[in-house]
């Protein structure tokens, strides 16, 4: 499974756009990129997934360049409630690896007023 590298922590202010970049140099052809969010005292929550280019949903956008060696999670106009740990995961599509997701330490985002 591809290893990921992301910043340990980031600070931002309310109303700003936050971009968290994840490196995954050894990503395989059939790997998908997935981001989870974890609030204090809760389990992680899936927020977005992509394979290439750009994906957007009601929570975030995910930008993936053509070489797919990195990805950027973009949170528009963050609020205090976006303070959480964000995990970048890379996993292949295939039943033999279903569920074997590697959660690293994630990026702790602190949003300040």
């Amino acid at each position, binding site marked *: 499974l591809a290893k990921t590298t992301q910043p340990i922590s980031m600070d931002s202010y309310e109303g700003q756009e936050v971009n968290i970049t994840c490196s995954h140099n050894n990503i395989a052809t059939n790997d998908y990129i997935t981001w989870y969010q974890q609030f204090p005292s809760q389990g992680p929550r899936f927020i977005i997934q992509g394979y290439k280019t750009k994906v957007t949903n009601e929570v975030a956008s995910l930008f993936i360049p053509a070489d797919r060696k990195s990805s950027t999670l973009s949170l528009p106009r963050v609020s205090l409630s976006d303070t959480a740990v964000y*995990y970048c995961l890379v996993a292949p599509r295939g039943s033999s690896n*279903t*569920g074997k*997701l590697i*959660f690293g330490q994630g990026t702790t985002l602190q949003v300040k007023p």
Partner: protein
Amino acid sequence: DAGITQSPRHKVTETGTPVTLRCHQTENHRYMYWYRQDPGHGLRLIHYSYGVKDTDKGEVSDGYSVSRSKTEDFLLTLESATSSQTSVYFCAISEPGQPSYEQYFGPGTRLTVT
């Protein structure tokens, strides 16, 4: 939110005591997982199940056993708890065959071994 409950939510036990944590789901998902979360280590997979009575080890399985006799229940047992097993334990579920690798997590169990 996915229908996942964990019991107990908090437990304090003594070293050498057996402990069983329960994960219960109402989603009829095939896959179930047990993770532990510790400061500096993120989430680490302990064991997972891909069907009733079908289980496999994760990256930190030593000292833990699991059982799944029904689709809805996945039990994690610490045969003889040690202080190094003090952690927050999360259960998760997923359904194979879907495009995404979305896992749904339970609320967690905080275990303290004294």
